[in-house]
């Protein structure tokens, strides 16, 4: 097939049809039809470059289809289907539209062949996904959503600044592999923008801040797309950057460290996104064919099992009204199926043999081993211990077993949720027992066999003895009703410090200045004005009669723009941004 249809089209157009459909059944049908069509679309795709336009002397490429973009496209459309199934019971059209725009734009970013295309979809992702937080409709979520948006706008600006410098330097915006030796300020700014979305420390705090406040269904989407789109762009542009290998490995340990002490189930899982994405970032940073393959394989497997975990935790939250481990316990009696599916996700992420994490994570660890990076390899295995300890043992034990503290008689979640969890569990298992089904999609042809005697022995020892220590120290691990400080302290308290300085210093000066102005300044001004008006009436009005009129018109326009509505501001900001880019590109 030499014609190419952009898979985002299904999501953008399909979701906009939703409000016009009255019948519940037809809506549900459409919600499942959109990802199904996109799966067929991706299945029929041939490698090549499609959808290239020349816009103001810039080559925009909407469809770069190669093995690297296809492996991500595959897992994105599969996840879109599973997520849509999980969210089928949601009544608000807006929630579905936000989710579909979010998925559509991440597919757009995956297939984009130049920085401008990637950037546009990158911004749509941030602005659509924030609604998945806001639809929770609680004050905490609204606040967290604003912080999420502000941080992502900041990341987008880093990317934009880097992009412009890059254009200035090279004269084009083609998004190709960058060699570490050629990288300057422009490349590192782009890298920083990408890293923010990948939650690379210290730019990670938005993730555990926002995801646990998202809606039950929204979090399932969010955990899949933002960070993995970032992993894709890193794998595309920045393989072999040493800084990524080091920061990625640090992320793996950092994430599990917080997961061990967190109380909220979904926050534990959010910290594990940082940890797991750390493996991928490190894989990209090591930069060999095996390690980049590992990063892609791990992204694929991770999207599925992490979504499964968020589905399980979401189901608990949906049915009991809380995700705090201190308030949960004994749920195995009420939600046995949810528990089984959650455990499948937990042993997949921990890397148990026969499940997906075992065949994907180990590629990155093996690549570190092959490259002689002993410390990276040991730290990754230490993070593996923490993964099983917190997601596999701590959450499972304190939510589903432990003492019976279920606040209400909880029961299994709606059927669509169970089906979605069941299907995702099946995929985790299939990838685990038949890893070639995943390996065949990977960008490079590298021989790798996960089921060797020594690898099996290594993983089983690590996991089993982690389990032993857990049961010996289980009392020490009891969750506590606390929150833990993280880097978001800087802008949450920093913002408050700014307000404090404003209250204590700037406001008094302002008031004082205002009083001074009122008493002294105004009198002087009146005096001056009397002279001026005389001068004005007699001389100026005669010369430039039209100016006053135009000033009034501008004032009128500005007043129109200051409506005080956030949507209007955001819309205006995006509009101005587009114009600024356009002017900048014209001048370049």
């Amino acid at each position, binding site marked *: 097939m030499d014609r190419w249809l952009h898979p985002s089209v299904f999501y953008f157009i399909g979701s906009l049809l939703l409000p016009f459909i009255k019948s519940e059944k037809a809506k549900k049908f459409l919600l499942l039809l959109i990802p199904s069509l996109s799966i067929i679309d991706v299945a029929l795709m041939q490698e090549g470059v499609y959808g290239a336009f020349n816009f103001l002397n810039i080559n925009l490429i909407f469809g770069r289809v190669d093995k690297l973009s296809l492996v991500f496209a595959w897992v994105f459309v599969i996840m879109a289907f599973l997520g849509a199934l999980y969210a089928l019971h949601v009544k608000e059209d807006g929630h579905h539209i936000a989710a579909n725009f979010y998925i559509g734009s991440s597919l757009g970013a995956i297939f984009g062949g130049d920085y401008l295309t990637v950037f546009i979809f990158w911004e749509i992702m941030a602005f659509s996904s924030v609604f998945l937080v806001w639809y929770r409709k609680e004050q905490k979520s609204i606040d967290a959503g604003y912080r999420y948006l502000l941080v992502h706008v900041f990341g987008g600006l880093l990317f934009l600044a880097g992009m412009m410098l890059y254009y200035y330097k090279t004269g084009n915006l083609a998004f190709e592999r960058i060699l570490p030796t050629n990288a300057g300020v422009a490349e590192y700014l782009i890298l920083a923008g990408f890293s923010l979305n990948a939650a690379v420390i210290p730019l990670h705090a938005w993730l555990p801040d926002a995801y646990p406040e998202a809606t039950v269904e929204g979090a399932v989407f969010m955990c899949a797309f933002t960070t993995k789109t970032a992993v894709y762009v890193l794998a595309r542009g920045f393989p072999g950057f040493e800084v990524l290998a080091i920061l990625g490995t640090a992320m793996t340990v950092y994430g*599990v*460290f*917080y997961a*061990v*002490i967190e109380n909220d189930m979904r926050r534990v899982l959010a910290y594990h996104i940082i940890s797991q994405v750390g493996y991928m970032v490190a894989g990209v940073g090591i930069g060999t064919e095996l390690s980049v393959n590992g990063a892609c394989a791990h992204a694929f497997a991770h999207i599925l099992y992490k979504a499964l975990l968020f589905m399980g935790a979401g189901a608990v939250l949906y049915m009991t009204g809380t995700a705090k481990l201190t308030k949960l316990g004994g749920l*195995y*009696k009420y939600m*046995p*199926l949810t528990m*089984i599916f959650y455990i499948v996700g937990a042993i997949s992420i921990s890397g148990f043999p026969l499940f997906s994490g075992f065949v994907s994570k180990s590629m990155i660890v093996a690549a570190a*081993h*092959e490259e*002689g990076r*002993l410390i990276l*390899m*040991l730290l990754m*295995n*230490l993070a593996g*211990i*923490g993964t099983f*300890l917190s997601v596999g043992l701590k959450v499972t034990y304190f939510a589903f077993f432990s003492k019976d503290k279920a606040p209400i008689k909880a029961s299994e979640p709606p059927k669509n949720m169970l089906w979605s969890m069941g299907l995702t569990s099946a995929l985790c298992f299939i990838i685990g027992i038949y890893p070639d089904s995943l390996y065949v999609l990977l960008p490079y042809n590298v021989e790798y066999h996960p089921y060797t*005697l*020594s690898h099996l*022995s*290594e993983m*089983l*020892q*690590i*996991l*089993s*003895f*982690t389990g*032993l*220590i*857990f049961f010996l*120290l289980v009392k*020490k*691990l009891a969750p*506590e*009703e*606390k*929150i*833990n*400080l993280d880097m978001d302290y800087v802008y*949450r*308290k920093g913002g408050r410090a700014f307000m404090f300085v404003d209250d204590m210093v700037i406001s008094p000066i302002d008031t004082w200045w205002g009083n001074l102005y009122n008493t002294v300044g105004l009198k002087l001004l009146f005096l001056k004005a009397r002279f001026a008006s005389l001068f004005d009436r007699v001389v100026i009005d005669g010369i430039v009669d039209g100016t006053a009129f135009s000033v009034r018109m501008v004032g009128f326009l500005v007043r129109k723009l200051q409506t005080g509505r956030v949507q209007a501001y955001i819309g205006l900001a995006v509009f101005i941004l587009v114009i600024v880019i356009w002017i900048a590109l014209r001048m370049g």
Partner: protein
Amino acid sequence: MNVLKYIEALKNNLNTLKKVLIVYLIILVIYDILIHIGAHGHFFVDNIPGFWTIFGGIGCFILIKVAKGIAHAFLSKDEDFYG
């Protein structure tokens, strides 16, 4: 529900379960020693039989102690800390 029955059965036989698991751990270490005979790995850690047993146990212990220690020292705050 069958699952429930199995879980209850396991809960009622915790002592047997513990014994089975300890035997499993011992077999695991013996298995690792066996596959190390004649093998030669990349790093020195590859050549120590049972290295990952020690690594898993000590790593897990340190992780719990350090994480909980730092949390109690200064990271943990009340839930309304940010207001």
